[in-house]
């Protein structure tokens, strides 16, 4: 049971200023228009690179500010990276197969 009023107070982390949330929202909407606008330009493979780069930037903003990852302890941050890491392994290793396949014709 809690007998230390000080520790209970510390359970509430510092309150983020409202301005920061509004700036992040503005940045997210700006990034959204950047991905929408760049998709209409003929950039070849860079269309995909920019689109995914913008998505990663949006995710990092949401995680850092909205989900308070910058204030979280290291263990929580590791847990939050876990799913993404696993996904990167899944897609990365699958692609080494599908991109590296050489059609070998049957010898008969």
């Amino acid at each position, binding site marked *: 049971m*809690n007998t230390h009023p000080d520790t209970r107070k510390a359970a509430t982390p510092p309150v983020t200023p*409202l301005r920061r949330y509004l700036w992040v929202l503005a940045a997210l909407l700006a990034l959204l228009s950047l991905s929408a606008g760049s998709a209409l330009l003929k950039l070849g493979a860079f269309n995909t690179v920019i689109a995914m780069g913008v998505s990663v930037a949006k*995710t990092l903003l*949401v*995680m850092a500010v909205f989900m308070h990852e910058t204030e979280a302890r290291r*263990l929580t941050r590791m*847990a939050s990276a876990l*799913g993404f890491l696993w996904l990167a392994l899944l897609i990365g290793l699958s692609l080494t197969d599908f991109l590296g396949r050489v059609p070998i014709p049957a010898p008969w």
Partner: protein
Amino acid sequence: MNATAMDIQACDPAPAVEEQYDDAVQQREAATLGMWLFLSTEIMFFGVLFASYTICRVLYPDGFAEASRHTDMLLGTIETAVLLTSSSLIAISLRAIKLGQRRACTWLLLGTAALGTAFLVIHGFEYYSEYTEHLVPGINFGQPGPHSHAIELFFCLYYFITGFHSVHVIVGVLLITTLAVRVARGAFSAEQHNTLELAALYWHLVDIVWVFVYPVIYLVGRSG
């Protein structure tokens, strides 16, 4: 106990710390860690669909570009803006409860749920127009041309990814509406609002999933 004393007890959620924890900090950290582990399973759940998408797109790049041009980019962009705004509203609602602003917190939560509902309604219109354009594999599909098979694959993945995402949005809307009612009735406080924080983490993840759905579904082959 008279009525006033009962009212006070109903409004005051303390004691905040359950007996298995040393203090409120430990309780809060355990809750956040547990939630992130759950969210990791959610990332893996959607991840399988994204991995399938990636492989199919590598195999049929032209077909996927043509299929993506059949989706409604304007509605997709509006849906993304709606979800990003809802994410910021729920973040600000948490700030409000931390400052003891119960009324503001309630309205911000209701605003978040309203934007989630708006997202679902817009997406419903999208599904309807795709049905009329014969873009629903297995039910109403009829796309001529050499990429017909790839377009069918794209729309299969489209319905699985956006369908499961919409289910998550529905769950989020119900959860957030329930929490808004509880906040209005006096639940949670500046010291004890773990449940709200966990719900917000869930909602942000639903937003993050959509942030990746948007470019892979709506933005492929737009410049061609």
